[in-house]
């Protein structure tokens, strides 16, 4: 099941050469005025054999063939240049529009750590495109299961059938629990869905949450802490993105301001309110404190009875049943034995989070070959030892990637420099970032090789014109739009911007440009990165550092999740052009629709569908809202569920404000 990929294409509109378009095949394509050129551009300033596009998989390189009038990328004359989405290409006088396959730039960043908003980043760890990645960093919550006695196992042959027989389950002695609504996953996605159901009138006894951690944000919090966002740091999320409050009112900024007022800190309160009043135009964008968000989820979890609904366990499979329902096969460890059981209901949503985080392939190769997991780390795994070592001994760190995690890691290193000033940073970029992404008549700002955007998508992807546009577009157009809006960005935080400038000024921070050829151990026990430099043509740069931190956060596809992989195989679920699960506009998987059952999903596994910011708090709320609206519209008389609007919504909001159960 390989996802469809759009191709590399070039197109031109020129008064002399005329209009045209060409799909670049694998290998070489010569552009020139000569009739035997692959692409003929009949313009006097184009040489007979002017330039050559070289496509190798997802990598597209442009070579000048000694033309008289030059080949230009982003206004600079080049002899050879690896093209990136957004590059402006000109051959002689003819401007070419180069379209890249979206998969290449959609190496999604593991952003649960930041998000609401995090999301898709362009891989710019100066490495290979995502499709070539093999190494997978499993999440800490997928430990190897201990061997212990198994009870009530659902026989394998029953699971090989796409329709599970409930009668046969009973006959096999498997415990089957009935419920109305199932939230599978037990993370933030499940929490938001459950919260909406409860707020919309559903009783806690009609909902079963299945997850293997007691706290819904456990995994998210771990990723935050690993990527250097402790409870006191701020997430890259919006004030109104409140997983504890479906209305997003009052937002985190208002709550924080209110707290400041109560502690007599009026200046701080005013500054917080000014942020949300002027952001991002005249004020720096507000982002909530990580600890505040988790505390608010704790309070809401208690209010809606999370513990009562949660059934701790590992989901092993999801199946349709012969009684027209959907079932989750679950195993729960009691410490001495593993009990298997089945939960069956009519409405299910699974939100299983990021299937895995991947390391850049050259770094993965290094780790595999050397077994050294100390000098090369992924920003999303626990790597505090790196900072400890640096504080004590000093050293040089190479950062790969230029997204929000890179910014945060850089801040951490800057903080550690106060303890030990002998810490230096080399920031490796694949190429110089001359200008930011453009879309329509707007563009993103670039400074010191960082591209800025408050969140990981343009803000109106959450609920404005761009959301409307994406939903109304077809698959191919969606992939194209996501390519235009995505890319690696970081937040334009004054402190981050200042510390980079300071680092450049003081010489402890240095950017380098090029594609990594290989990463090898150095003779003195450190790590050498060999880079094909883009600054000096044809030269190889060797940079030896004490550590390499992979901040790219490449995210693996849905097939990396055993449960989803099994679902895909069993029901032949279609994928979208980005290789994620194809959902309808209500986040339902139509392939799992059953007599009287509906299955929805949410999160990163749906990227490439109707919504861009799928892995953000607000995006999860949006998915939940669509799913619940769809359940209401199903005509299946969902138990207890009411439309959350008007006076009923107001009444529920008052209950939220009072902290009483919905």
């Amino acid at each position, binding site marked *: 099941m390989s996802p469809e990929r759009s191709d590399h294409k070039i197109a031109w509109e020129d008064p002399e050469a005329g209009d045209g378009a060409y799909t670049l095949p694998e290998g070489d394509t010569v552009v020139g005025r000569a009739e035997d050129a692959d692409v003929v551009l009949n313009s006097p300033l184009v040489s007979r054999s002017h330039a050559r596009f070289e496509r190798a998989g997802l990598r597209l390189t442009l070579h000048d063939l000694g033309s008289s009038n030059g080949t230009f990328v982003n206004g600079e004359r080049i002899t050879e240049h690896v093209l990136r989405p957004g590059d402006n290409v000109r051959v002689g006088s003819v401007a070419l529009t180069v379209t890249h396959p979206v998969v290449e730039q959609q190496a999604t960043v593991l952003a649960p750590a930041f998000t609401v908003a995090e999301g898709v980043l362009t891989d710019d760890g100066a490495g290979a495109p995502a499709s070539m990645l093999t190494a997978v960093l499993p999440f800490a919550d997928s430990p190897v299961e201990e061997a212990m006695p198994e009870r009530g196992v659902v026989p394998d042959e029953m699971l090989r059938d796409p329709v599970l027989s409930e009668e046969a389950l009973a006959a096999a002695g498997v415990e089957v629990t009935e419920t109305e609504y199932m939230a599978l996953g037990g993370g933030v996605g499940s929490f938001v869905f459950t919260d909406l159901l409860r707020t919309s009138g559903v009783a806690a006894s009609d909902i079963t949450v299945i997850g293997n951690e007691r706290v819904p944000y456990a995994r998210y919090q771990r990723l935050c802490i690993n990527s250097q966002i402790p409870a006191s740091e701020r997430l890259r999320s919006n004030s109104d993105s409140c997983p504890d409050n479906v209305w997003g*009112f009052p937002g985190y900024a208002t709550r924080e301001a209110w707290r400041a007022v109560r502690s007599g800190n009026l200046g701080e309160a005013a500054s917080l309110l000014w942020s949300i009043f002027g952001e991002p135009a005249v004020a720096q964008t507000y982002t909530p404190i990580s600890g505040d968000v988790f505390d608010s989820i704790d309070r809401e979890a208690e209010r809606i009875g999370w513990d009562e609904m949660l059934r701790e366990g590992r989901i092993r499979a999801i199946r349709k049943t012969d009684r027209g329902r959907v079932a989750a096969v679950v195993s729960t460890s009691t410490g001495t034995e593993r009990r298997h059981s089945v939960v069956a209901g009519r409405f299910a949503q699974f939100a299983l989070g990021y299937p895995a985080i991947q390391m850049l392939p050259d770094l993965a190769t290094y780790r595999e070959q050397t077994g050294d997991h100390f000098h090369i780390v992924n920003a999303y795994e626990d790597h505090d030892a790196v900072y400890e070592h640096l504080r004590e001994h000093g050293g040089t760190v190479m950062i790969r990637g230029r997204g929000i995690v890179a910014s945060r890691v850089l801040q951490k290193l800057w903080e550690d420099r106060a303890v030990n000033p002998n810490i230096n940073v080399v920031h490796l970029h694949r190429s110089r970032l001359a200008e930011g992404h453009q879309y329509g008549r707007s563009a993103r700002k670039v400074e010191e090789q960082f591209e800025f955007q408050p969140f990981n998508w343009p803000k109106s992807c959450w609920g404005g*014109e761009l959301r409307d546009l994406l939903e109304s577009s077809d698959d191919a157009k969606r992939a194209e739009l996501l390519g235009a809006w995505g890319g690696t960005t970081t937040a334009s935080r004054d402190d981050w911007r200042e510390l980079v400038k300071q680092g450049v000024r003081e010489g402890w921070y240095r950017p380098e440009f090029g594609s990594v050829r290989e990463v090898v151990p150095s003779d003195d026990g450190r790590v050498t990165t060999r880079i094909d430099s883009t600054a000096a043509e044809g030269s190889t740069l060797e940079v030896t550092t004490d550590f390499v931190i992979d901040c790219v956060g490449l995210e693996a596809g849905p097939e990396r999740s055993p449960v989803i992989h099994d679902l895909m195989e069993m029901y032949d679920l279609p994928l979208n052009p980005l290789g994620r699960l194809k959902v309808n506009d209500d986040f339902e998987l139509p392939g799992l629709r059953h007599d009287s059952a509906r299955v929805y999903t949410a999160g990163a596994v749906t990227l490439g569908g109707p919504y861009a910011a799928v892995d953000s708090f607000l995006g999860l709320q949006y998915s939940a*809202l669509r799913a619940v609206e769809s359940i209401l519209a199903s005509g299946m008389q969902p138990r207890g569920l009411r439309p959350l609007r008007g006076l009923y919504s107001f009444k529920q909001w008052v209950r939220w404000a009072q902290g009483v159960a919905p």
Partner: protein
Amino acid sequence: MTPSLAGRWQSRLFVLGTIGVIVSALFAVSLSDPGVGGGVYFVILFYVALFGLAWDVAFIGVQRLRWDRDWPPVFQVAAGIVEGLVLFLLIDGGGLPGIPEQGVPFGSRFLPHYGLVWLLSFLWLQGPMRVLSTRWRFFGGRLV
């Protein structure tokens, strides 16, 4: 806020039809001038709505120049001031049907009425609106 054009129109008509009507009624009852009558506040409200539909088209144009396609509250304030001033100049210039010949005094009548309608609408749209409609903020400010 990241409104769409349809969302701007719908939200505008909604707040003017609710908050605007209530505020205008209060003004009509309490600040009715002899020979003019309280109805003038409703005429002004009507023009805020009518011209606003055109203003919204212009504002969406501005929004499209912004990468995020958003509309920070500070822009909403600026828009409210510009809209109000232009409307007052049109009223003052005379010729708008339904407006008394002598015009409407700016400081004692127009500003308090327009200002209060605008302020309450603004505050309402910054949050409480979402309590009545959970969809509103995800659909560019549309209600239907």
